């Protein structure tokens, strides 16, 4: 049972880190919105799903790659990858802002109960998933191979593939940029102010509506980047992939401490590793179960997550 784990420990670790970085970016989408609104962005999973389709459309329709065509190399590869990344980030960010506008804004303005807002968010995520289901005929959509998965080098018997390396480096860079943005920019300061104390932030002249829209936008950008890396690594997407990804990324956010950006980082990485090791030991069909058990255990023993505030406290 554990033989697989010991045999392939390093290659599993590298796959886990790549998956972990994807989780980091998606859980940023949850954590950012939670920090500001104190509400789970239920539609984030569908924002991710729309982002993956953004990446597929770039590869398939914009650059006309097919299942049989030659993978790109050199400068062209860079152009294709960057366009795909930017386009899926754009699609996801647009979806996120749309979700905020349709499902959250009116209810937030009216000051209705949280349940109504949550259900409205569930409604919009069902609608987003169903639109895609009808558009794709409930079929999985394969992405043509743009990037040849060359094995770059071998470390301790583990193959280091080009796509995993690109995912790890690029995701780390994007995470770093976003973190710096929140930390240093004026807008980032406003976002942090709102998440600390909304009323005080308003009194200091922070434009609440703009802060919330920007928060959804940044969450969408991170989720969209994750969607692109997902497509690059797994080369496939479907209208319902959002659900599993959303549950896992949310677990990662809770594991690190929701509302905390650094928490999303460590939570995402540890969940990615854990999931890969668990699939190796128990078999992939139990992957989602492992994630869920981790979530319950975290809520049971360390409800603050590794870095976060106490979830039992709600703000007055």
């Amino acid at each position: 049972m554990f033989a697989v784990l010991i045999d392939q420990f390093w290659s599993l670790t590298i796959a886990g880190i790549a998956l972990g970085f994807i989780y980091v970016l998606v859980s940023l989408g949850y954590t950012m919105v939670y920090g500001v609104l104190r509400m789970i962005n239920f539609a984030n999973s569908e924002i991710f799903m729309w982002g993956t389709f953004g990446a597929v459309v770039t590869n398939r329709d914009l650059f006309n790659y097919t299942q049989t065509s030659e993978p790109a190399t050199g400068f062209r590869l860079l152009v294709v990858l960057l366009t795909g990344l930017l386009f899926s980030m754009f699609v996801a960010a647009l979806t996120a802002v749309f979700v905020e506008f349709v499902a959250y804004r009116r209810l937030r303005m009216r000051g209705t109960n949280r349940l109504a807002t949550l259900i409205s968010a569930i409604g919009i995520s069902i609608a987003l998933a169903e639109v895609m289901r009808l558009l794709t005929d409930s079929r999985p959509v394969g992405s043509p191979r743009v990037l040849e998965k060359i094995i770059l080098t071998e470390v301790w018997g583990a193959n280091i593939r080009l796509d995993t390396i690109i995912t790890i480096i690029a995701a780390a860079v994007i995470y770093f940029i976003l973190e710096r943005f929140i930390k240093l920019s004026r807008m980032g300061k406003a976002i942090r102010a709102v998440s600390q104390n909304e009323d005080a932030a308003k009194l200091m002249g922070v434009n609440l509506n703009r802060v919330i829209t920007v928060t959804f936008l940044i969450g969408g950008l991170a989720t969209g980047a994750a969607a692109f890396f997902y497509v690059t690594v797994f080369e496939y997407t479907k209208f319902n992939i959002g659900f599993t990804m959303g549950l896992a990324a949310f677990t990662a956010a809770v594991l690190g401490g929701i509302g905390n950006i650094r928490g999303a980082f460590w939570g995402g990485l540890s969940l990615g590793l854990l999931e890969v090791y668990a699939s190796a030991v128990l078999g992939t069909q139990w992957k989602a179960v492992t994630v869920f058990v981790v979530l319950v255990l975290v809520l049971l023993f360390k409800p603050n997550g590794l870095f976060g505030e106490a979830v039992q406290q709600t703000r007055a």
Partner: protein
Amino acid sequence: MKIRNYWNLRDFGAKIWEKSNRIQRVAISLIAIFLAGLLPFAGNGILATPISAYDAVLVYPVAIFVLMALGLNIVVGKSGMLDLGYVAFFAIGAYTMALMGTLTSLNTWQIMPFGIAFAMIAGVLLGLPTLRVRGDYLAIVTLGFGEIVRLVALNSSWTKGPNGIANIPMPPNVGPLEFDLFNQKVFFWVTMIMILLTIWMIRRLSVRRPGRAWEAIRQDEDAAELMGIPTLKYKIWSFTLGAAIGGAAGVLYASKNLFIAPEMFTLNVSILILACVVLGGIGNIWGVVVGATIIGYLPERIRFISDARLLVFGIVLVIVMNFRPDGLLPRKKREKAIVKKGVNK
């Protein structure tokens, strides 16, 4: 904040009810029950469903949806906890019926208590760790739990995996009434009796200590705790009662359908049941009954949009929540939570 009621059916009904004396109330209830009992005979006119058999539609989805929505209403409406994995308890009830019905010689009515008990045990096991946390977390944890139950059923050999369990026995005859696959009136009546029992139970509980405790928890949990209400205990009770009704619905469903498989217990069922509660009016029993009837029946009546029906659902949820955040038939104003008005939030 003013809620505009363009057609206030609830207050109209409540007025008639309050004006009548005890005998009139009994008469009204009996007539209503009798009319509802006649529903299976009304399948030839405008109510007819084009593709599915009308009396089968009345049992599932309509009656079983009403039963489950009433159960979920205890959790979501009465005590204000969002449960997105309600299908888990339905599945546990159905699998109990399927496994015990095929492996032992017990009949449906003997298995029913087991189904309810297993669902309640699952409710306690899930509730103990998760009911300490609030709202949104509970939503995600229950959502995950619903999926996990389905995945366990799908991946385990003792549930026969994706093939499902067939040859579940029919319930034995009750007196002169025969259960028949092609004539499901008796099933409808049995489910209706369970619905009436559930309504009776909820109404009794609502005016007594648990009902008041749930109400206090829903309005302000901290205040309730400070007033000396053991909130965790009452939350778990509410969760477990909801689970029990879900389990009973599952037992009925399995013995009606004679075959169950994991794909019948997807997240969609949880969402549909939640939609019943929310669309009808969170917390109001009659609102929930109306909502569940609409959501169970309408898609069968309008089969031509059945492919886009979930899409329509999502959009309807957003619209209803935005324009009538308390549902079509909301609870009375005095029962409504005091909305904490944060600044512009």
